[in-house]
C-alpha cells in the first residue's frame, strides 16, 4: 500500500465533482459541478468576509465557544437557514426536472436526481427541521420556565457542533464523491454493498449519525431541564404550553434516536464488516431495517411537529390578548400524541405483506392520534374566541396553518386506511401528504416562533411588511406546489421519478413548479426581511422586552436578556405568571436582594468534540482510517481533558447584576406603555399598557 493510498483512502481525482464535470460535461454533471462550486465559493466567501471584517476573535469568543443556551439556539437557527436554502433549491431543481422531463431525459440524470431527493429529505429532516426546533426550544424554553440555562450547557454545545458537523459532511458530499441515492430512509438491500458500493450510503449513514447523536444529547438536556430546572413555584400545570411540548419532544428524542442509531450502525456493520443484518443472502432480513427505521421515523415527525404546536399555543394566545383555551386539554393532548406516536410506525409500510389484523391495528392507532391533534386545532380556534385578534405575521401563519394542516390531516386519515394506502403508498399523494404536514405544520410554526421571539433575542422587531410578503409567497406557494401532487398521486404517479411518460401529467407539474418558485421567493423574503429589519432597527427597538403584551416569563426581562436571564429567579404562583404580575402591578420591580450568579465559562470543548467527530466520520466514509482514529482520539481526549477541569465556571458579582437590573428598570420607567393598536409602530418600546378589564 503506497503512502498516498494510506493517506487518501478511496479518494481519487475522480472524487472531485469538478473533475467529473470536466471529463463528462453533460448538463447533469455541470449542474453538479455548479452546486459543488457554490458550496466551495460560499465557504470561501464566508471565511473571507469574516477575515476581512476581522471578526474571527469575536465569533470565537462570543459565539462558537459560548455555552449560553440563547446563543446556541441562535446558532442552530442560522445553521438551519443555510441548509434550508440548499434543500429548497434542490426541491426547485427536482420540480423543474419533473416538469420538463416528460418523454424527455430532462436536465438531470437519474443518478443525480436520486441524490437530489436523498439530500433534500435528509437535509430537511436532520439539518433543517431538527436544528430549527432545537434552536427555538434552546432559546425560549429556559426563559419560559425561569431557569438560567439548560441542565447541561457543555453538552448543549457538543450537540450543536455535532449537528453542524453533519451539515458540513452534507456539504462535503457536493464536492467530494456523491451522496446516497437511497432516499432519506436508506432502505437496504439497495443501500448494501451489493447494490451501492460507493461512498453515497456511507455519507448518509455517518451524517445522519452525527445528527442523531446530537439530537439524543439534546433530548436528555431538554428533558432534565424541564424536569429539574423550573423556577420555584412553577408546577407542571403552571408551565407554558411550549415548555410542555419541549419536554414531550425531548422524551421522544430520547426514545426515538436509539432505533435510528441501531439501524444505521447495523447497516454500517453490513457495509464495513461484511455482516448480514439486511443483506439479501446469508440470513439477512431487510424487514428489520424497515421496522427499526420507522420506529425512529414516526416519533421523529412528532418531534418535528410538537414544538410548532407549542409555538402556535403561545402565538395565538398572545396575538388574541387572551388566555389559551383548554390548557389542560392541550396538555393531555400533547402527552397523548407523544405516547401514541410510538404505536403507529407500521403505517409506513402497510404494503410489506403483514396480515390484515396487524395492518388494521396500526391503522386504527394512526387514526386515534388524529383525535388529540384535532383537539389542539379546536383549542386554538377557541383561543381567538372572545379575544382581540391582531393579524400580525405569526398570527397570519397560524391561521394558514389551521386551515391548510387539516387538509393534510384528512389525507393522513385516508392513508391510515390500509386498503387506500395500498393504492397510494410511495406515490406523489404520499409526498403531498407529508409536505402538507411539514410545511404548514412545522415550517409555518417555526416562522411564527422566529418572528415572535426575535425581538426578545435581539432587541428589535422584524419588518412586518416583509413578513406579510413572505406570507403571501409561502401560503399560495404551498398550495400550488403540492395540491397538484395529490391529484397525480391518485393517478398512480410514483415518487422519486426522474422521467415521466404521460403528457397528461404536464399541466399539473408545471403548476407545482410555479409553486416551488413561489416557495423559494418566500424563503428569499425571509432573508430580505432580516436584512431590512437590521437596517431599520432603530425604528423598532423594544428594549423593555415585552413587545407583544404576552404572558410568559420570557417577556419579563430586557430585550436582549442579560446573559444570566433573570437577575433574581422568579417565584411563580400561577400560570401565565408574567401576565398576572403586570395586572397586579408587581412587574418591573427591583429585587430586595441580589446574589452572585454562577455561569459556565466559555469552552472550546464543544467545538472540538463536534468537529473532530465529524473528521472521524468523514474518514469512515472515505476509508481514510488514520483520519478516523485521529478524530476519535481528539474527541475522546477533549472529553477526558474536560472531566479533569475543575475551574469551569465564572461568577458575576451581585453588584454587577444589581447595576444591570437597575439600568433596565430605569429604561422601563422612561418608556411609554402602548396599547396593542400601536404594537407595530416605533412607539412600541416593549412596554405594554396594562388595561383593567
Amino acid at each position: 500500500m503506497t503512502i498516498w493510498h494510506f493517506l487518501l483512502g478511496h479518494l481519487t481525482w475522480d472524487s472531485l465533482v469538478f473533475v467529473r464535470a470536466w471529463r463528462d460535461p453533460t448538463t447533469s454533471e455541470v449542474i453538479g459541478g455548479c452546486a459543488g462550486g457554490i458550496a466551495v465559493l460560499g465557504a470561501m466567501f464566508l471565511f473571507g468576509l469574516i477575515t476581512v471584517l476581522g471578526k474571527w476573535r469575536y465569533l470565537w469568543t462570543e459565539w462558537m465557544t459560548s455555552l449560553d443556551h440563547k446563543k446556541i439556539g441562535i446558532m442552530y437557527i442560522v445553521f438551519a437557514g443555510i441548509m434550508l436554502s440548499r434543500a429548497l433549491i434542490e426541491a426547485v431543481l427536482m420540480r423543474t426536472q419533473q416538469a420538463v422531463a416528460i418523454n424527455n431525459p430532462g436536465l438531470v440524470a437519474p443518478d443525480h436526481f436520486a441524490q437530489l431527493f436523498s439530500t433534500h429529505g435528509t437535509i430537511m429532516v436532520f439539518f433543517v427541521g431538527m436544528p430549527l426546533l432545537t434552536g427555538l426550544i434552546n432559546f425560549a424554553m429556559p426563559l419560559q420556565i425561569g431557569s438560567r440555562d439548560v441542565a447541561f450547557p457543555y453538552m448543549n454545545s457538543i450537540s450543536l457542533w455535532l449537528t453542524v458537523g453533519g451539515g458540513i459532511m452534507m456539504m462535503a458530499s457536493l464536492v467530494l464523491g456523491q451522496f446516497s441515492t437511497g432516499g432519506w430512509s436508506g432502505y437496504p438491500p439497495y443501500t448494501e454493498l451489493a447494490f451501492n458500493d460507493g461512498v453515497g450510503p456511507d455519507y448518509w449513514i455517518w451524517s445522519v449519525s452525527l445528527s442523531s447523536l446530537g439530537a439524543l444529547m439534546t433530548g436528555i438536556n431538554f428533558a432534565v431541564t424541564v424536569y429539574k430546572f423550573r423556577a420555584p413555584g412553577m408546577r407542571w400545570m403552571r408551565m407554558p404550553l411550549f415548555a410542555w411540548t419541549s419536554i414531550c419532544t425531548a422524551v421522544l428524542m430520547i426514545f426515538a434516536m436509539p432505533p435510528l442509531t441501531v439501524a444505521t450502525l447495523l447497516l454500517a456493520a453490513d457495509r464495513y464488516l461484511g455482516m448480514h443484518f439486511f443483506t439479501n443472502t446469508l440470513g439477512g432480513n431487510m424487514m428489520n431495517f424497515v421496522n427499526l427505521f420507522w420506529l425512529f421515523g414516526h416519533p421523529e415527525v412528532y418531534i418535528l411537529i410538537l414544538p410548532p404546536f407549542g409555538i402556535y399555543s403561545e402565538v395565538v394566545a398572545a396575538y388574541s390578548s387572551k388566555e389559551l383555551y383548554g390548557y389542560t386539554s392541550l396538555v393531555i393532548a400533547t402527552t397523548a400524541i407523544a405516547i401514541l406516536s410510538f404505536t403507529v410506525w407500521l403505517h409506513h409500510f402497510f404494503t410489506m405483506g403483514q396480515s390484515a389484523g396487524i395492518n388494521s391495528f396500526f391503522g386504527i392507532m394512526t387514526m386515534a392520534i388524529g383525535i388529540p391533534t384535532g383537539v389542539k386545532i379546536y383549542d386554538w380556534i377557541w383561543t381567538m374566541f372572545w379575544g382581540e385578534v391582531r393579524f400580525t405575521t405569526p398570527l397570519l401563519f397560524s391561521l394558514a396553518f389551521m386551515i391548510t394542516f387539516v387538509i393534510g390531516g384528512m389525507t393522513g386519515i385516508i392513508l391510515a386506511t390500509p386498503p387506500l394506502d395500498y393504492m397510494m403508498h410511495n406515490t406523489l399523494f404520499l409526498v403531498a401528504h407529508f409536505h402538507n404536514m411539514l410545511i404548514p405544520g412545522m415550517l409555518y410554526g417555526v416562522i411564527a416562533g422566529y418572528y415572535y421571539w426575535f425581538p426578545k433575542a435581539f432587541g428589535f422587531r422584524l419588518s412586518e411588511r416583509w413578513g406579510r410578503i413572505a406570507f403571501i409567497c409561502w401560503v399560495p406557494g404551498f398550495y400550488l406546489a403540492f395540491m397538484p401532487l395529490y391529484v397525480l398521486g391518485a393517478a398512480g404517479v410514483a415518487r422519486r421519478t426522474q422521467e415521466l411518460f404521460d403528457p397528461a401529467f404536464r399541466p399539473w407539474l408545471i403548476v407545482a413548479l410555479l409553486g416551488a418558485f413561489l416557495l423559494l421567493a418566500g424563503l428569499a423574503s425571509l432573508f430580505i426581511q432580516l436584512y431590512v429589519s437590521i437596517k431599520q432597527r432603530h425604528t423598532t427597538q423594544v428594549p423593555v422586552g415585552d413587545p407583544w403584551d404576552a404572558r410568559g416569563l420570557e417577556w419579563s426581562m430586557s430585550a436582549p436578556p442579560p446573559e444570566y436571564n433573570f437577575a433574581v429567579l422568579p417565584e411563580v404562583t400561577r400560570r401565565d405568571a408574567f401576565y398576572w404580575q403586570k395586572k397586579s402591578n408587581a412587574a418591573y420591580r427591583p429585587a430586595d436582594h441580589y446574589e452572585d450568579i454562577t455561569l459556565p465559562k466559555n469552552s472550546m470543548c464543544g467545538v472540538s468534540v463536534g468537529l473532530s467527530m465529524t473528521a472521524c466520520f468523514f474518514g469512515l466514509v472515505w476509508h481514510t482510517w488514520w483520519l478516523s482514529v485521529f478524530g476519535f482520539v481528539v474527541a475522546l481526549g477533549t472529553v477526558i481533558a474536560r472531566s479533569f477541569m475543575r475551574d469551569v465556571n465564572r461568577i458575576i458579582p451581585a453588584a454587577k447584576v444589581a447595576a444591570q437590573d437597575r439600568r433596565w428598570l430605569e429604561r422601563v420607567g422612561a418608556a411609554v406603555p402602548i396599547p396593542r393598536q400601536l404594537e407595530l409602530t416605533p412607539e412600541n418600546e416593549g412596554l405594554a399598557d396594562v388595561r383593567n378589564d
Partner: protein
Amino acid sequence: MSETTEPELRHAGLNLADDARELREHVESDVFGFWVFLMSDAVVFALLFAIYGTMRHATAGGPDAAQEFKFHSAFWETALLLTSSFSYGMVSLLTKHGRGRLWPLALLAVTFCLGAGFLKMEIHDFVTMFHDGATPERSGYLSSFFVLVGMHGFHVFSGLTWIVLMGIQLVVFGPDERTKVNLIRLGLFWHFLDVVWVVIFSVVYLQGLIR
C-alpha cells in the same frame, strides 16, 4: 420547585449535607441526566435483543448457538461481572462514608481486574468461535450475536477505561464533589451493564443451549 426531602436523603453515594444548595441541586440533575442516558442505552440493547430474536434461526446453514456456545466460560464470565458489581458497590459505600481515597481506589482496582477478566474470557471465546468458522460474516444469526454481545463488551471496555480515569481523578483530586458525582454515574453504568449481561446470559446463552 420545592423539595419535600433534603437531597442528601436521596443520594446514597454522596454526603451532601454541608454542600451549598445550588451544588446539591446540580448534583441531583447530573445524576438524573445520566439515568436518562442509560434509558436510551437500554432502548439500544432492547432493540439489539429484538433483532437477535428475529434472527435466531437465520443461520444460513452455518454454525448455530448449540454448536458454538461455551456455557462453561459464559458461567464464569457472569460470576466475574457480578462480583465486579459487588466490588463497585463497595466503592460507592466507601465514598459515601468518607473513607478517604485509598480504600475506594483499591476496590476500583479490584473492579477493574474482574471486569478485565470478563473481557479477556469473552475475547478468548470470540477468537475460538472465529477459528471454528463462526464469524459474524457467516450468517445473519452470527452477525446479530456478535453485535449484541460485542456491543455489551464494548460498553464494558468503555467502563474499564472510565474506571482507570476515575482512579486517576481520585488520586489527583481526592473525593471532591465532581469526582463523587462521576463515581456515582460510573456506578450506575457498571450496574446497568450487569443487568444487560444477565439478560444476555439468559436470552442468548441459556436459550441457545436449549435443544
